[in-house]
């Protein structure tokens, strides 16, 4: 046992020793100063109104507004997410859960070896800081401008992979399917795959 440590004596501070900052109060202004203040109010009545009748009227957000996330796809429909968990790692609110898995020839969800099997974002926790977007090495995760993210239960605010995946656009095939013939994962990352090939449509 170490010797008893002597307690530090409390410092005695008298109220008189404490300096209080004096709040500067300007004295009453003249009549014209008051008129100047009312003039601002008056002139505003003739300006364009900013208020929007939401939800009847919806204004577009700023172009880079941080809204709901989206998991993007390559041009042939394969998922860009590789399940690396870097978004989850970067997340300061611990809102993201990712579990990776092995791509196989029969079940290929993304180019390369790995894909995200489980992908959840908990919008009760998300603070829309966008660090996950910065962390994503494949630009799989981006943010949309969608901001209407209120709901009646907690469960509904945990978005699964299916809720977050970008829709299939023209020319995309729903995975699982093989990679574009003759292309490797690096070709995908360089953006050299411009669409799907008929041979990839294995589900037909």
């Amino acid at each position, binding site marked *: 046992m170490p010797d008893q440590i002597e307690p530090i004596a409390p410092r005695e501070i008298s109220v008189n020793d404490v300096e209080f900052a004096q709040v500067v109060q300007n004295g009453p202004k003249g009549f014209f100063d008051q008129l100047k203040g009312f003039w601002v109010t008056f002139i505003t009545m003739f300006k364009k109104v900013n208020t929007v009748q939401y939800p009847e009227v919806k204004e577009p957000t700023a172009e880079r507004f941080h809204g709901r996330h989206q998991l993007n796809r390559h041009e042939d429909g394969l998922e860009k997410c590789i399940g*690396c*968990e870097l978004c989850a790692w970067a997340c300061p609110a611990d809102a993201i859960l990712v*579990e990776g898995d092995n791509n196989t020839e029969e079940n290929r969800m993304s180019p390369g070896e*790995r894909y995200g099997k489980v992908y959840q974002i908990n919008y009760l926790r998300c603070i829309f800081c966008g660090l996950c977007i910065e962390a994503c090495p494949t630009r799989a995760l981006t943010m949309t401008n969608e901001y209407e993210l209120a709901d009646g239960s907690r469960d509904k605010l945990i978005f699964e992979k299916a809720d977050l995946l970008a829709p299939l656009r023209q020319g995309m095939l729903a995975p699982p399917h093989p990679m574009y013939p003759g292309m490797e994962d690096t070709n995908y990352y360089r953006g050299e795959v411009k669409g799907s090939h008929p041979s990839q449509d294995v589900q037909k």
Partner: protein
Amino acid sequence: MTTTEVVDMISVVIDGFEVSVPKGTLVIRAAEKLGIQIPRFCDHPLLDPVGACRQCLVDIEINGRAFPKPQASCTIPVEPGMIVKTQLTSAVAEKAQRGVMELLLVNHPLDCPVCDKGGECPLQNQAMSTGQGETRFEGTKRTFQKPINISSQVLLDRERCVLCARCTRFSAQIASDPFITLNERGALQQVGIYEKQPFESYFSGNAVQICPVGALTGASYRFRARPFDLVSTPSACEHCASGCDMRTDVRRGKTLRRLAGDDASVNEEWNCDKGRWAFKYVTALDRLSTPKIRNSDGILVEASWPEALAAAAAGLSANKSAVLVGGRATYEDAYGYSKFARIALGTNDIDFRARLSSDEEREFLAAHVVGSTTTYRDIDGADQVLLVAFEPEEESPIVFLRLNKQFRKRALKVTAIATKLSIGVEKLKGEFVKVAPGAEASALSSQSLTNKSVILVGERAAESAGLLSAVAALAQSSGAKLAWIPRRAGERGALEAGAIGNLLPGGRPVSDAAARVDIATAWSTQSLPSENGKSASEIIAAVNSGSIGALVIGGVDPLDNSDSAQTLAALDKAFVVSLEIAPSAVTERANVILPVAAVTEKSGSFLNWEGRPRTFDSAVADTHNRSDLRILSMIADEMGRSISLATVTAAAKEIASLGRWDGAKISLNKVSVATAPSLSSDQAIITSWRRLLDLGTLQQGEENLAATSRQTVAVISPKRADALGVKDGDRLTISTELGSVTLPALVEEIHDDAVWAPRNSRGSQLLSQLGVAHGAVVKVAKA
């Protein structure tokens, strides 16, 4: 190393600080002593230095003469007058290290996001600390085919390899399984396996663990998690009696991987593949979750805990009862069973030996094993090690690694008295004393041992009458140290806890009145049963004859015994209370089933073969399952005969307060060797042992691991092969009255009278298929 050994100390100056280290210390280790971290990849304290990665370059000057170029600090031992400047004080060393890192990264793929090592990767970390931010390399990286299986369990990604040779050195030097090697030269240099020989070493997982990059990865952990997902708990291995220190990594209530812990006095930094990868049984087995009781119609129905406890208590109170506890129980659980038998059931009829055993063994354990203090250190200092009915590589792999270390270091002499030459003994270049099954004792008399020798005797010694008597006599006459190495992790603990009929906790003989008083006082009970309890086989016989009516069974597989039909009949007849994690042959016949926690779900300890406590905490925190101890305590309360052991901590405290018995031990009555059976030409004596990787219950659910197990074969001697006209690979049938097994033959070093087959491997489950496993006469014929 003994303490009297004089060690020359050498003073060196590293980065301006003086440090004194023993002669022969490497510069990198001396720097570590000062807290100076020199980056490195190939350096590993337990492997021979190789200087392969060149990452640890430092400036060295001896007595005013400087080396013209930076030197690898992991290969240079300290010398008097040496002045070392690391990257911290020398711009040259710093630049050299940065240059090496740049070269290492030239061909390293940018796999970090998909690589399992990402987040705990020495290359990643040291690229951040000693590398430069931008690459200057503009060419095309060398590529290889992405991961190739070098065994079903280990994947090799050659692009990521930095050629540090840790894996190849480990395999060659530590495991003596040189199945991987560096092939080719220059940029194409790569780790490779022999063409038709996969990396099927029992220790391959260690190579994965020490790989400083993600070049070697395990198939079962592939893409499962990142380090920040995992909650790590220090734990102990439940698979064998070696007693490895382990680390269990859990993600959201599920064990994802286990790593070898670092305990210099036991497993050093290694473990075996079974300990590392066989953990899925906890989730793979169809776990029991609620208690069940057999209703009046004879059907098992789910019940509440109070109902089940009341039913168990009623059944046990109404009958004369006994306890069978398998060798998998923790020390505390075994103590719970031991106390439960004595206090709640009022009997000494308890046995932890759920395997082939004998009365001679029970006396041997009480006379020579309980309280024994032989340790790994004794193996380190031994002049000779004698293996009796014990295959270290198969039955206690860390003992094998320790023997191998001493064999490599100082050519330790190993002698194996065995029926068949094993791969492990071959690797140790051991002297193989060939004996017929059952006649092992005869070979002991010719052994000359000294008081620095160590005798390691396995649990299979109980299968040959007279062998343990002979071993004890040899130890006595030569003064050699004796150690009994069981296969299961809980056996030594169960022995010390008195979960056996002739001993009370702490090695106190039941037959000694003073010992009984000791325990009775500690347990605050009037008296304890004074007669030696029955052994497992006697308990089964007593149930079948009707003198015992109820059994408490925890973790026992009836098929581990030769008379499994007898055991099953007894289970059908008796009132059985089964404490189990998953449905088994016992639960099928039980009257009350009480689900218990698996090892990862509870805290406790095992005693390894040395008697060293290996404590562990529960790795999975939010389990609803209770330990055996807790349940036994509840049954005892229900019976009105409390054992007052509510928690593992309480049990551990009580065990510690009891201490050891310092009085006289039981003496071993010499048992004579059975006469050798006479054989006709188509007959042989069966011999077998369990392999490390086989059909054990705790290995279920891990196919990748099972695929690396050794081939199931029947081994016969060249003479018998000639007589039968059998070549390697021909089918051979071994049969008894009960049944037969047909296996590919392997002609090898084995006693001419013997035939060997693995005891519990795919296609060869001798105890259930033949009903015998060692020493019995079987028929051998070409299939």
